Every structure is written in structure tokens, then in C-alpha cells.
């Protein structure tokens, strides 16, 4: 009942039908992600499921290194879609995000048209010698699809096969440039003045990641579902370490997770993230460490913590010399 009403509503808004749902249920999402190596918790799986059903983009926020980009990649792998990535930075503008006309090719085409017209042309156009092509034909020709350079957003909209669009670090883009994204995100269409509006035939799944360095505009947040990925709890971190670090013993994984949890309770400038935990675990495995003690941890602390003041504080509070 509810799904039909939703489909009618989408048809009324002129949106393409969302197609069959990609996931059956929240546990199915969770198991699927675990199968491709991404251990999600309830919240993450729930939001991904909802995003598919409601056809809304997902805004993923959280501290650096907690698996935001990895989530989009894993969902693409899980659904067998192509991943299209738009890496945002401060000077990003329409020509690099949406589309650009290939000026050089257009200029060449015009010049070639003149040259070929003068020399009669290989096809021997009988309609007239020099300047045979009228302006109207030329205009339609150079503003056709051949001369359009598609950038990630337009490519994601036009693609006929299933696509996951990842807009990475959208908080680096300036406030004014965010406006580019709005049309794409809410109605999945791009307006090109010369060609008309390009609508998506198949709705992509869209993920936006943000490191929270600046406050995103209300308009952008309103169009998205919000997901905050924080540092994982002990149990989940241990499972992540066990799954992603080949050759690690259960006991070592447990110790690693506990030490990292204790480090996060200290007031550090930058708390260790999941990727740093994995790096540390891999280093320990490579060094052949069976069990961590205070000296061993202190020696390898620089892999986890990236500020000297943090390392000193951790060494003092957590790893003080054994009595």
C-alpha cells in the first residue's frame, strides 16, 4: 500500500520510477555489507536501507578515518554498481563538476567546416560551395552531445547502468558552489541551456561525506538523510580489526581495541581513528608481537597518534613505567 502511494507521488513529481528496491530489509543490508568487508552497525544499515527506499541522498558526517568513504565503496560493491566519485575542493565549479563544452573541438569543427566547404567537401555537397552549412545546422552540430564533456555529476545522472555517486568532502566546497549540487540531489536532473534538461532514467544512490570543518547550508542538509559515524564501540572495533587485519590473533585484536578505547578517553588533540587502529594492528602483526605491553605500545605509539603533545600525554597517563 505504502509503496504504491510512493510510486504515484514520484510519478506526479516527474521523477523517474525508483525501480525495484535494492535491499529487502535492514538485516539484509547489514549482512551484505559484512560480506564485502564493511562491518556496519544498526544505524548505518538502517540509514542505507531508508535512503534506497526514499530515494534520498545520504550525508555522512564524522571524524576523519571512520569509514565514511569506505561505506560508499562497499555499497557500490554490494549492489554491483559503478562508483562515480566527485572529489570536492575549494575551487570546484560547474565546469569540473557538471559538464563543460569542449571549446577546442568546437573551434576545430567550425574551422574544419569552413575549409571543407571551400574545397567542395568529400561528400560533394550539391547544395552550394563555400559556406554550405547554414548557421542553424552548424549550431545544432557543435552543441550536440559529441561536444559535451560530461563530468561526474552529469555522468551519474545519464548512466544507464546502476551507479553509486560519491561526493567526497563536500565541506571543502564553498557555500556558493554547493548550489550546484542542489538540483542534482533533489530532482536528479541537470539543466543544460543548449541541450535541455537531462533527467535520470535510473536513480543513483548518492553519498556525501563531510569532515565537519564548516557548517553545511540548510538547503543541502534538508535534501539529505543524515548519518553520523562516530568512533566504534569496543565490540565493533575488535571485529573490524579481526576482519581487516589478516593473521591477527583474537587476543591481540582485543588488546588493541581496549588500548585504543582508553586512548580516546584522554583529552587528545586528535583521537585515534579506525584507520589508524588498523595501521597499528598491521604493524604489530608484521613485528610479530604476540601481546602488547607498555614499552611495546610506547614505541609504536606514533602510528596511532599524530601530534607530539598527544604522544607525550598518552605515554605519561596510560603507559607510565611499570612499578
Amino acid at each position, binding site marked *: 500500500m505504502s509503496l504504491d502511494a510512493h510510486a504515484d507521488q514520484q510519478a506526479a513529481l516527474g521523477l523517474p520510477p525508483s525501480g525495484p528496491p535494492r535491499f529487502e530489509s535492514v538485516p539484509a543490508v547489514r549482512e551484505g555489507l559484512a560480506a564485502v568487508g564493511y562491518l556496519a552497525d544498526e544505524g548505518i544499515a*538502517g540509514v542505507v536501507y531508508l535512503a534506497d527506499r526514499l530515494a534520498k541522498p545520504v550525508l555522512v558526517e564524522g571524524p576523519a578515518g571512520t569509514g565514511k568513504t569506505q561505506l560508499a565503496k562497499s555499497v557500490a560493491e554490494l549492489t554491483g554498481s559503478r562508483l562515480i566519485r566527485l572529489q570536492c575542493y575549494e575551487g570546484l565549479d560547474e565546469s569540473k563538476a557538471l559538464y563543460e563544452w569542449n571549446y577546442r573541438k568546437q573551434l576545430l569543427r567550425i574551422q574544419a567546416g569552413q575549409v571543407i566547404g571551400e574545397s567542395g567537401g568529400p561528400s560533394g555537397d550539391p547544395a552550394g560551395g563555400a559556406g554550405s552549412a547554414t548557421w542553424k545546422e552548424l549550431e545544432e552540430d557543435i552543441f550536440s552531445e559529441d561536444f559535451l564533456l560530461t563530468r561526474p555529476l552529469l555522468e551519474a545522472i545519464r548512466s544507464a547502468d546502476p551507479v553509486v555517486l560519491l561526493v567526497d568532502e563536500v565541506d571543502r566546497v564553498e557555500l556558493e558552489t554547493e548550489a550546484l549540487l542542489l538540483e542534482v540531489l533533489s530532482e536528479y536532473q541537470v539543466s543544460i541551456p543548449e541541450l535541455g534538461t537531462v533527467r535520470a532514467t535510473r536513480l543513483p544512490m548518492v553519498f556525501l561525506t563531510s569532515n565537519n570543518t564548516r557548517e553545511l547550508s*540548510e538547503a543541502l542538509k*534538508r535534501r539529505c538523510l543524515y*548519518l553520523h559515524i562516530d568512533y566504534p564501540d569496543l565490540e565493533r572495533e575488535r571485529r573490524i580489526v579481526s576482519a581487516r587485519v589478516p593473521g591477527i590473533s583474537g587476543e591481540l585484536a582485543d588488546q588493541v581495541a*581496549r*588500548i585504543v578505547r582508553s586512548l580516546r578517553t584522554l583529552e587528545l*588533540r586528535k583521537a585515534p581513528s579506525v584507520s589508524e587502529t588498523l595501521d597499528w594492528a598491521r604493524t604489530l602483526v608484521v613485528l610479530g608481537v604476540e601481546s602488547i605491553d607498555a614499552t611495546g605500545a610506547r614505541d609504536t605509539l606514533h602510528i596511532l597518534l599524530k601530534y607530539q603533545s598527544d604522544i607525550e600525554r598518552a605515554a605519561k597517563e596510560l603507559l*607510565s613505567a611499570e612499578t
Partner: protein
Amino acid sequence: MLDLLSGFVTELRQAGLPVSLTEHLDAAEAVHHIPLEDRASLKYALAATLVKSSAHWRAFETAFEIYFANRGPGPADGGDDPEGDRTPEAADATGSGAGRGGRRGQGGGGGESMSAEELAELLYRALASGDGALADVVARYAVTRYAGMEPGRPVGGTYYLYRTLRNLDLDGVLERLIQAARDAGPGDHGLTGLEERLVADEYRARIEQLRRAVESEIRRRLVLDRGAEALARSVRKPLPEDIDVMHATRDELATLHRTLHPLSRKLAVRLARKRRHGRKGPLDFRATVRRSLSTGGVPVEPRFRHPRPAKPEIFVIADISGSVASFARFTLHLVYAISSQFSKVRSFVFVDGIDEVTRFFEGADDPAVAVHRINTEADVIWVDGHSDYGHALSVFNQRWGDDVNSRTSVLVLGDARNNYHASEAWVLEQLARQARHVYWLNPEPRDYWGSGDSIVDEYAAHCEAVVECRTLRQLERFVGDLT
């Protein structure tokens, strides 16, 4: 269901979360797609559509616990409560809150039959084994036994929480657990320092979970007793940026400290952007010609150099007596965190004597460390340690007045409660002539200005503006407009 959701959204708006109509509609639609029995999924579905900032999560969670309260059966229930709550029953409870008063007694029978020692033993076992279900049961019994909740009593949830936790003596239990772990350690030297720390953290985490279980149990019973709306008003938690800094509790101060770092980063980014894009500078010929190559040599898009307005200098003169101290510390922390946006920052603190504390901030890369040092090392007591603005200002003028030039902005932080000493407002007048701006930041509510021994009106005559800065939000807005 829709009514309940509307009430929930209203409550969120009153707590300060900006929930728009579109988000409300999205939430209503999201609820269609999840099975209603799954409370956790409901929570995440609502959070995904209604909460758009991580700082608002706590306020959302509190409101959710109240509106979608879990009405599971109590420990010694006769079974007349149907299994697992839900929304139609929560709506029921809202409507007939008073009628439910009699039901509460259901949990009473189970808890009182245990003695205090048995309960303590059960608590110890639950924490030692880390069994979550057992901890929930202990929480319920503890609330029944110790909280002393009575129907219709106009007392807030924190009182019950305090009573329950005090009687459970959680610190003592933690000590016992750590000692037991020490005794159980291998060999005769017990645990190493690191191991002991890890064990202690593990127990602390379990105790924190128990504490939360107790809190949610108390809230659940209060909802049954009073109904959702009345309770929501009394336990509504302010957002971090709206907490009154002068009257913050210890937990709120901790939240504020955590918010300060991302806040200062965002402020620095915003100020940097403002400086860069305020105006366009002169034409950058080389970049324009370069750009024109892609359009066949025709300069279609001119490029301009970035304007570089001069960075201001900041002098911060802060009162660190009594209740104003925490506010002064926050402001100093914030100003130094964005110090890259200013060409020079010098800070001074005073009570009745004044001292320059710039050297503490120069050494440390973390402003929090420097702020701690101020408490211990700054030399600010002259006669008796009561605020004397007049003396402090005149000493400032004498020692450092010449350093104030036309690029300086002077910020004075304080409530201007001078203990009836001389005001020496002429110092501010002189500073106003020398400096570019003089601002006064007052952390008291505007209604209190001028009452008692507050002479802020006298100082206000010479300041460009006197700004009320009670919350982080106001402080951020002021600093954002500063440059």
C-alpha cells in the same frame, strides 16, 4: 501515529533543533518503511530525517526516550502489561497519564523483597561479568528500592537519579572490582600499569552503561506517571551552544569543552573565507591571459588577485574572579584557537591586580593547557582578591597603554561588579581614542546590568559596544563579526 510524531517534532523544535516541514514529511514517510515493532530502527529512521547535526543528538535522544517510551513489563509483573510497548500505547499514556498512576506499583513488589546486601551482590556480579541483561534488571530493582518515586510528586528526574546512585555506591564497587582484578592477576606482581588501566576503563564503561540504564528506567516511570509533554519540558536539555556558561554544571562544562574545538575550527574557516572574498582585488593579468587560452585567446573571464586586508590585533583584558572565570577561560581559549586570523594577540587577566598571560599561550600549542596555567601562575591578587576594575585598568594603562595603536581591537571581559571601588573610566576613554575598537563582553543577563555594584553603564559610555555573551552561540557570533 501521526499525532505522536507531530508532538515529537514540536518538542524537538522547542528544544532548539531546527526541524523544517520537509524534514517532518520525510520522517512521516520513513516511518512507513520500517517495521513498527523495531524500536531501534524507529530511532535511527527518525534521527536520519530529523537530526542534521551531531551536536543535537543528545537533545533528540532525550526527547525520543520520553515520547516513544519503552513500556516493557517491570520485574515482578503479573503480566497485565502487554509485551513491548509501542506507539499506540505510548499515545494512550500521553492521553490518560493520570490514570496510569496506579499501575506503577507493579514493579514495587519485586524490588522490595530483596535486601540491600543481596542487591549490592547482584550489582557486583552484573558488573564483574559484563552481563547487560542482568545490569538492566539490577537497574530496575535499584530504582524501585532506592529512588522513592511517588505518584504526582513534583520532583525532577535528577533527584531520583542522585538518590539511586548514591545508595548504590558505585565508586566503592569500582574499587572492589579493580582490587579483585589485581588479586586475580598472574604471578605475585599482579597486573602491570597498562593492564590495570585497561581493566579500570572496562569497568568504568560498564558502570556508565548501568548509570544510563538507571536513568532511562527512571524516565520511563516518570512518563507513565506524568505523561510525555509535561516530562519533556522538565528534562529538556539545552543544546551545547545555548548553555549558559556562568551557570553550567560540570557535565555541561565538559560538553562545552568538547564543542569548543570544532567550533573554533569552523570559525577560523569562516573568517578566512570572509577575508578572501570580501572584495575583489586588482586584475591579475597573467592569470587572465592564461585562462583565455582555452577560449582561443579571447579573455572571456577576467581573474582578480585576492585582496589582503590587514589582520587586526587583539588585546583581551579578562576578569577571572569568581563566576566570570569560566567564561573568561572559554573566550581566551576561543580567541587563541583562531589566533591565525589575527596578526597579534595579547591577553591580560586581572582580579584586582593585572598580569599579562601572553607568554603562556605562546609556548603551548593547545590553548587548554595554557588556560590551566593561568589559574595557577598568574599574579592577579593585589590587596584582598575582590574585583577592582579601576585599579586593574589604571595599572594596565600605566604598563601597556602605549602598546595600543590604531590597528588594535580591545576586548574587555567581565561583569563590571566593582565592589564599590573607584571606576577609573577615563582609562577606557583614553583607550577608545587610541585603539580602533573597544568592546565590552558581559556574561550576565542584560537585566542585571547596573544592579548592585555593577558599573557597566559607566564603562559603556566609552565602549563601542557592550555585548551580552552568555552562551557559546552569542560568543561565536560576536567573534565572527569582529574582523
